[in-house]
């Protein structure tokens, strides 16, 4: 090797140590980015197998599908499925906890309930339903406004309830 020439202090031992650290940092960073993207694919940040969740009431009359991980100001869906036993006299009546509804930003309910009533901690939804109807599902289109962990309670009027949590990313 020829005699060492330095351009300023570019070749200081400290500089080389820095570069070596920088290179290991980069490689660790690549792995971290890779893991992050894999987690995103898995649905840890919503819209994937890790995020799509179901829950059912103890008596099996109510089943919900929801996104465990949703994002702030991004659309999300809550679908409620009812068993035939949930229908009484051609009517379907269920409630959702007010705390949850306040936070979760309901944009639209499909189909529209025939009436709602604001009873204290619970908000009740009523639907008229043809007793012979095969289709007993209600979709809530949501768009949460705030980053938080939400606790949801959903129940049939006079039936058992479903509880689940939902995390809203920023």
């Amino acid at each position, binding site marked *: 090797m*020829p005699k060492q*020439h330095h*351009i300023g202090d*570019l070749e200081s031992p400290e500089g080389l140590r820095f570069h070596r650290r920088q290179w290991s940092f980069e490689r660790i*960073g690549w792995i971290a*980015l890779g893991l992050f993207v894999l987690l995103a694919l898995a649905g840890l940040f919503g819209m994937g197998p890790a995020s799509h969740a179901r829950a059912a009431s103890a008596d099996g009359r109510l089943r919900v599908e929801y996104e465990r991980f949703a994002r702030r100001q991004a659309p999300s869906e809550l679908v409620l499925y009812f068993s035939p036993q949930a229908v009484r006299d051609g009517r379907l009546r269920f409630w959702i906890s007010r705390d949850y509804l306040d936070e979760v930003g309901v944009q639209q309910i499909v189909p529209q309930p025939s009436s709602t009533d604001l009873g204290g901690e619970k908000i009740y939804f009523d639907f008229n339903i043809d007793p012979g109807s095969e289709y007993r599902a209600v979709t809530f289109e949501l768009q949460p406004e705030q980053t938080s962990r939400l606790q949801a309670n959903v129940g049939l009027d006079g039936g058992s309830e479903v509880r689940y949590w939902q995390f809203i990313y920023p």
Partner: protein
Amino acid sequence: MDTVLRAVGIYFVLLLVFRIAGNRSLAQITMFDFVLLLIISESSQQGITANDYSFTNAVVLISTLVLVDVLLSLWKQRSEKMERLLDGMPLILVRHGEVLQVRLDKVRVDQKDILEAARELQGIERLDQIKYAVLERGGEITIIPWEGSPAADEGATAKKAS
């Protein structure tokens, strides 16, 4: 308030991601790098403005970003360590005509890149005309040629490109 937090958040996320990518990643500005840059800026813009397209929000956002940038530059000026951490350091790739291949591999630069920079900056044709090549902090490669007539008289130590 949200806007300020989101702007600061995005600033540091971008800083981190680009430190991970290495300072050479978007410096080559090929056509595709340019497109990528546009997509990245578009994505981060949506992340920080969210749904608020108001004038006020834009002013808050711009002020926050510029403020963070100024504060960091003040910190960099006071602390050399901070400057190194945020901006990286120049790295010698060709030392006295000798190509430091291990370093080239580490920073994902090859001899073609060095020659390209040499042609562009100095009108140099061959690797043995290069005395020093340095990967600068901004990701560009700078070249110092041998003085006088290149290679022939002084460049006995230089390695051939092929």
